[in-house]
């Protein structure tokens, strides 16, 4: 078998089932198929693991051991030999693998030490923390598979929709509180120029109100007499307000004033009409 063929075979074996442990290029006990896996394939193997915990779990499972009863010596030896092979081939070992190797070595050394006199009841089995982490990881490894097994959109079921001939969008306008408008006005004035505040005194507003009325009156008639704009029933104050409104509209060039002869009739002309294409 050529190198490349062997590599392919190994790769296929990797894909077909979980990769197998490999030590210094030699198969470990009960190795399955291939005898030699070139370094490239080892890389593939390492990629198949989600990290040192996953690799450790695999080594434990391979030997059909209960996590709770890890023969720490065997596993440590296996693990460390495994990563030393990877190191040899300059594979960039993730730091996590080395940390795990150190942890295993530490546990192993503590196991070798003679047990201190039983006075210290708190002394834990040095494997306890490792066992806890392995168990914890295994729970979520299983949970990930469980989630993968849940009915999933596109793979297990489809979302449905029917054609709708006309999708008309209704939109409901938001509620507005007068106070929001007032506060907006106050803010904008504060930003622009505080001096203009006198413009919203009551009189001014009634002038503005009258200005709008006048604009509307003039909308229908292009001309009207100056006199007809005033309603004597409103009294002096009403006349003044109207007069101010007319002056304001003259100033802003909304209205124009026309007098054909001295002391003749004064007419008001709307300038706003011109080019009027709005509503």
């Amino acid at each position: 078998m050529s190198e490349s063929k062997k590599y392919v075979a190994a790769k296929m074996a990797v894909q077909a089932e979980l990769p197998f442990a490999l030590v210094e290029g030699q198969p470990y006990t009960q190795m399955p198929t291939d005898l030699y896996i070139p370094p490239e394939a080892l890389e593939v193997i390492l990629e198949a693991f989600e990290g040192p915990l996953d690799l450790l779990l695999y080594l434990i499972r391979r030997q059909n051991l209960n996590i709770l009863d890890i023969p720490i010596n065997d596993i440590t030896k296996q693990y460390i030999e495994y990563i030393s092979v990877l190191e040899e081939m300059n594979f960039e070992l993730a730091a996590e693998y080395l940390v795990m190797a150190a942890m295993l070595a530490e546990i192993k050394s503590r196991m070798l030490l003679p047990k201190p006199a039983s006075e210290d009841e708190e002394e834990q089995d040095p494997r306890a923390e490792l066992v806890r982490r392995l168990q914890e990881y295994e729970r979520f490894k299983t949970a990930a598979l469980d989630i993968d097994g849940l009915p999933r959109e596109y793979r297990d079921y489809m979302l449905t929709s029917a054609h709708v001939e006309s999708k008309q969008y209704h939109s409901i306008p938001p509620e507005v509180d007068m106070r929001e408008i007032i506060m907006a006005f106050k803010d904008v004035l504060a930003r622009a120029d505080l001096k203009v505040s006198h413009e919203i005194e009551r009189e001014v507003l009634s002038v503005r109100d009258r200005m709008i009325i006048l604009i509307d009156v003039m909308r229908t008639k292009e001309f009207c007499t100056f006199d007809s704009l005033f309603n004597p029933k409103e009294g002096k104050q009403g006349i003044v307000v109207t007069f101010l409104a007319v002056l304001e509209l003259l100033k802003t060039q909304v209205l124009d004033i026309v007098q054909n002869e001295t002391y003749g009739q004064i007419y008001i002309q709307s300038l706003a009409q011109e080019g009027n294409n709005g509503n």
Partner: protein
Amino acid sequence: MEIKQIKNIIEAVLLAAGEPVTVKRLQNIFSEQELTYNDIAKALEQLGEDFLYRGLELNEVANGFRLQTKESLQPWISKLWEEKPKKYSRALLETIALIAYRQPVTRGEIEDVRGVAVSSYIIRTLMDREWIRVLGYRDVPGKPAMFGTTKEFLDYFNMKSLEDLPTLAEIKDMEALMPELDLDPKPKEDNFQAQFINTEEE
């Protein structure tokens, strides 16, 4: 394969496809059952009848068959897309405030006071709501439209005339009387917080 099962599959396929499906494409789906064009056509016909008393109807359009909602149910279906009211922006509130207090006012004048451009969207929104109208056009170059508020605007806020708009003095009183109402809205503050939590990534 039973016709009932064929119909069920066709129904599911038509609704999952999200587009019209041709008979040929349907035939392809049953390739293992080796159904003929006629088998499919017959199933489609029966399916169409099944739908007579349901909310959908089977329809053949240029690109194939599709299931669509019945026209008669449109009044209910349209309600699905009733948009929830969105709050008006600060810019819109300032614009309507300026139009209310300063009418007749042109867009340029609003922009002068606000110091920023007034978007057409805001003017359109206010027009659509019938809160503002064009009073006329100012006789200056460009003939800008003069805006004013409408009767609907006054009605909405329960006012008889513009005179009912509070004056600045009244606004100040209001603030003094009801400080707890948080009239001075720091609106962006809260929005910001909410956004910040929602959109913040890693």
